[in-house]
């Protein structure tokens, strides 16, 4: 199944249906393999046409760290937004931890991201994302994301 809730792969049309990020803040191009509720493998192709390269930096273009983190997180989102019950839901950052940058990512690089969902409970998703370029570790992080519409059900009575 492709581009549908519960699907095993998503192109850009499916990604736009599954999550709320939009250009210029959408940082995955394709989810090549997805096991909803478990994992996602995504790709992001960085070309010199990206809006940040001319200024980061003019004489040495490379992908800003926050963009790499956002790419990792957007891939991670697909591990649970691919589930029919969460498809298209809004999300919010809770924590990012243990983020490591190991390799510069430059125009022409394809970042391949392996994301794993370790826990999804009461609107809180926890897991890891690892990004590689040509098989070489570039960036990794642990991440926790909230689903506000679920969290709302559990907030204390006041």
């Amino acid at each position: 199944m492709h581009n549908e809730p519960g699907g095993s792969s998503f192109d850009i049309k499916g990604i736009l249906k599954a999550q709320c990020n939009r250009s210029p803040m959408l940082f995955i191009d394709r989810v090549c393999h997805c096991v909803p509720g478990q994992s996602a493998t995504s790709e992001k192709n960085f070309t010199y046409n990206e809006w940040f390269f001319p200024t980061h930096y003019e004489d040495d273009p490379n992908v800003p760290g926050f963009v790499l983190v956002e790419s990792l997180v957007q891939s991670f989102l697909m591990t649970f937004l691919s589930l029919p019950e969460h498809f298209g839901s809004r999300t919010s950052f809770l924590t990012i931890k243990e983020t490591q940058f190991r390799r510069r990512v430059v125009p022409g690089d394809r970042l391949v991201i392996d994301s794993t969902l370790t826990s999804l409970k009461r609107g809180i998703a926890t897991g890891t994302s690892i990004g590689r370029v040509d098989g070489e570790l570039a960036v990794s992080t642990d991440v926790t994301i909230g689903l506000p519409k679920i969290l709302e059900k559990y907030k204390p009575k006041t």
Partner: protein
Amino acid sequence: MSNIATYTAAFVDAFRVDETQVADLAYQSIEQWDSLGHMQLMSDLEERFEIEMDIDDITDFSSFSKGKEILGKYGVAFDA
């Protein structure tokens, strides 16, 4: 570590407050204890005490003191 020390540490870690402040905490009494902070606290407490709380207990968990009462239902005692 005693149960009260574990319980206090969960609040300190979740909300980045000093342990002398936790006894007076209630939901939304500090900006860190919002709906997101609440769920992080609940998950942390479940992990620390190896319990799983019902939704009614999670929504009743409105303060530090009320929380002790609720955890008592799961066998977490705070008496010396």
